[in-house]
């Protein structure tokens, strides 16, 4: 099954002409057709466009040489979260308000993917407006976890994570405001990289929490994440919050055989109520890294529970403003099309910004945000990265979010502090539970420390390559 390949393998196969991009793309489309009735990953499938792009890639591939070198993703089928604007292709952010909205422009991420020669398979499901951590808040029905379709894939980038886990695509794009890449990657047992805020352009990404939103990748391997980041990272004149910092070769960084890292471990991240299997597997993984040469250091971090309040207030304030443009005058569908979660967030945020409450909520939250940023800064003076569980639980069963307005915030408690601080982070699968559900570990690095985070992730991935659980895959 060609669609099982990771990006590195697929590139190799394309280069050696073992198969064409059209064949690879067809294999993905077939797999999607075979599995998507169960999984509900794609909100919009762009079969025709994908085949056209694959044909174009094949003719480029025939040229070999420089073109191939420059186009890092030439002929590689990619699935894109539906909050990335795609020129001429419906972009809904899984919200009915945007049911028939077709953007007249590409988001910078999509533009860069196209320039790198990627083939776009379609748009993946998510919690509507990225409000959630389950995809149950999607206006197009929830996506299911490929490891067990009675369970959720996590979210909000649940569609992209499930698509990778189910081998429907070779690579996928997600976005994270707080946990929306790492948490679904954890629940689906795949690699999810959340770059530093400002490392990848937000231009064209339907805005959720503007001061947090970080586009990133969901992939089968660490190498693939490094490769996609190499394509996406960089200053964008269309996004004033991107950084002019030089983009290093992240794939090159993986080849440095470095293992003498100092890893920080904080007890605060093994919270009360954490799933014992999650705790056990992550602690085992940390020990494995120590055996590979890393030094461990106990550190004390701010209790992540404070991050929930800060994040909730600031994010919902931004949401209330970001969703104001869907006022019923444009985009076809009026405000009655907003689902409950969006309405709750609009009301919450509007209240938090109201005169008389601003100081009490938004202002105070901003101050605590600065404290959390400082807390991490101090920690990173002593350690290279921090390792913790990504999610305190395994993938929860379908329906778990019902009547749980704060579900996402509680499920994302371990990823919210680093999102508030705009740090870099990655989820790595470290094993399966007895119930055959994936367990993920996150590596958190300082801002713009993606090289280091990827190196440690790669070290771990390569060092555990032969583990028995890696041979298993979802049965669909």
């Amino acid at each position: 099954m060609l669609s099982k390949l990771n990006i590195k393998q697929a590139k190799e196969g394309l280069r050696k002409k073992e198969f064409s991009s059209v064949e690879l793309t067809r294999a993905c489309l077939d797999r999607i057709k075979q599995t998507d009735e169960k999984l509900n990953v794609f909100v919009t499938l762009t079969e025709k466009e994908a085949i056209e792009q694959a044909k174009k890639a094949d003719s480029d591939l025939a040229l070999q040489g420089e073109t191939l070198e420059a186009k890092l993703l030439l002929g590689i089928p990619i699935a894109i979260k539906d909050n990335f604007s795609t020129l001429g292709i419906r972009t809904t952010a899984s919200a009915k308000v945007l049911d028939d909205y077709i953007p007249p422009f590409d988001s910078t991420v999509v533009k860069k993917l196209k320039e790198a020669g990627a083939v776009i398979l379609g748009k993946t499901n998510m919690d509507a407006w990225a409000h959630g951590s389950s995809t149950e808040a999607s206006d197009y029905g929830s996506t299911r976890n490929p490891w067990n379709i009675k369970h959720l894939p996590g979210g909000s980038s649940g569609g992209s994570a499930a698509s990778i886990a189910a081998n429907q695509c070779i690579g996928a794009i997600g976005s994270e405001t707080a946990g929306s890449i790492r948490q679904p990657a954890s629940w689906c047992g795949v690699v999810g990289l959340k770059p530093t805020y400002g490392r990848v352009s937000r231009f064209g990404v339907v805005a959720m929490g503007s001061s947090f939103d970080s586009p990133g990748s969901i992939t089968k391997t660490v190498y693939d994440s490094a490769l996609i980041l190499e394509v996406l990272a960089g200053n964008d004149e269309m996004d004033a919050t991107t950084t002019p910092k030089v983009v290093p070769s992240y794939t090159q960084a993986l080849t440095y055989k470095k293992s003498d890292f100092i890893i920080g471990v904080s007890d605060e991240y093994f919270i009360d109520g954490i799933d014992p299997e999650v705790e056990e597997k992550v602690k085992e993984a940390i020990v494995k890294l120590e055996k590979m040469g890393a030094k461990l250091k106990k550190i004390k971090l701010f209790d992540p529970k404070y991050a929930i309040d800060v994040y909730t207030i600031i994010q919902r304030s931004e949401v209330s403003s970001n969703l104001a443009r869907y006022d019923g005058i444009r985009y076809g569908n009026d405000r009655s099309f907003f689902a409950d979660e969006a309405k709750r967030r609009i009301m919450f945020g509007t209240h938090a910004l109201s005169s008389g409450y601003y100081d009490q909520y938004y202002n105070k939250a901003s101050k605590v945000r600065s404290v959390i940023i400082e807390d991490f800064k101090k920690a990173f003076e002593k350690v290279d990265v921090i390792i913790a569980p990504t999610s305190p639980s395994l993938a929860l069963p379908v329906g778990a979010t019902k009547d749980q307005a704060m579900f996402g915030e509680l499920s994302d408690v371990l990823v919210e502090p680093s999102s508030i601080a705009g740090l870099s982070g990655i989820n790595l699968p470290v094993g399966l539970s007895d119930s055959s559900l994936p367990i993920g570990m996150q590596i958190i690095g300082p801002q713009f420390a993606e090289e280091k985070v990827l190196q440690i992730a790669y070290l771990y991935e390569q060092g555990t390559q032969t583990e028995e659980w890696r041979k298993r895959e979802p049965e669909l």
Partner: protein
Amino acid sequence: MNNYTPVIGLEVHVELKTKSKMFCSCSSDYFGKKPNTHTCPVCLGLPGALPVPNKKAIQWCIMIGLSLNCNIPLLSKFDRKNYFYPDLPKGYQISQYDMPFCINGKIELSNGKKIGIRRVHMEEDTGKLIHETIEGEKVSLIDFNRSGVPLVEIVTEPDFESTEDVKEYLQKLQQIVRYLKVSDANMEKGDMRLEPNISLRSNNTNTTNTNNKPISNKELPKYKVEVKNINSFKFVEKAINFEIERQSEILKNGQTPKQETRGFVEKSGSTVSQRSKEEASDYRYFPEPDIPPLRWTKNYIEGLKLEMPELPDKKLKRFKSEYGLSEYDSIILSREKNLAEYFESAVNDGKNQGVSPKQIANHIINKKTDIDSYLPSELVRSIIKSSKKVDVDEKKLDEIINKVLSENKKAVLDYKKGKKTAIMYLLGQVMREFSEKIDAQKVKILITNKVNSYEQN
């Protein structure tokens, strides 16, 4: 009416004439253009579009602030002003709330009164709503060409007490932005929009408030009426006068005017209530997360000062001191930057040709020189030509003077009786005898001497 002193403050919006809009690269030259042709995802507020601030517009905003003697804080930021209106595509306007680019300025009026400038900040314009009837159906159309055009808002302290001062301030402000070449400040095109706020303070110091403490003269009234939709200096005057009248009537009856926003109605020259304090919007300002805070260095601000032209007030003073011009001439010549530059160019040209600044000023003002048709050097040449004196034969001149005096005995007699102007008549008669231009001053002296010598005889 005399029992109250008006307390007036002004908010003025000036649209900048940058090439591109405030947060995108669309052309900001929207006036008279086909609707919705100067738009892009950013100024249409499409999902995911992000604002990137226009550096030039910010520089110009700071220059306006510097011209008004403002402080320029080295840290500033943009904020979102959230409100709903169909012409506002994002559901919020990007503006500045608590950290504007320029603060605490002042400007001096000709009577010496100083008007405080509270703040000068940067924001974006909205789209334009057009209400029309198309095929019998009433429709509202939106043109987003103006959406995102850079606007600078200049807010004064409530330091005005008369419409004359308001008018002078507005003229000065218009003159400054034109000097800086940052806006055409054309009222008809809406480049400059005016919002006065007016209240009345009692002059009777014995008046007591509810706490029975005397109200200090400096204390601001407890209410404020803002008037919107004014697009000419004349209408500002009308609106303010109308409000002074209206509010003093209310106060005379022992009541306090409502704190509210009123709209100006051109036809009647009156104002009508739009919304009261209770209905005032809560804009839910918060820092614009899409634009990082902006930091300047002192050097950067000093550099901007160097780029700025000499401003009207300074130029006026210099014209008086450097060229010895009258107040009147200096005001006229410094009113517009082009004219001032023309004048100084001519002065420079005339310097080595014996043409004085005063002569040039007189020529420009009195002869209403069309500065677009004549080069400054051409002006100087024509001044020289018209004032060229011809040396006349002294003997011939003496003969002619004698002839004129003998033919005009009555005038000579009048002069002797004390009618000094008779000399001018005689001078005119003498001059008529010459076809070329001769030195009238010299002739006048000769005639006077001769007439006086008759007396001695």
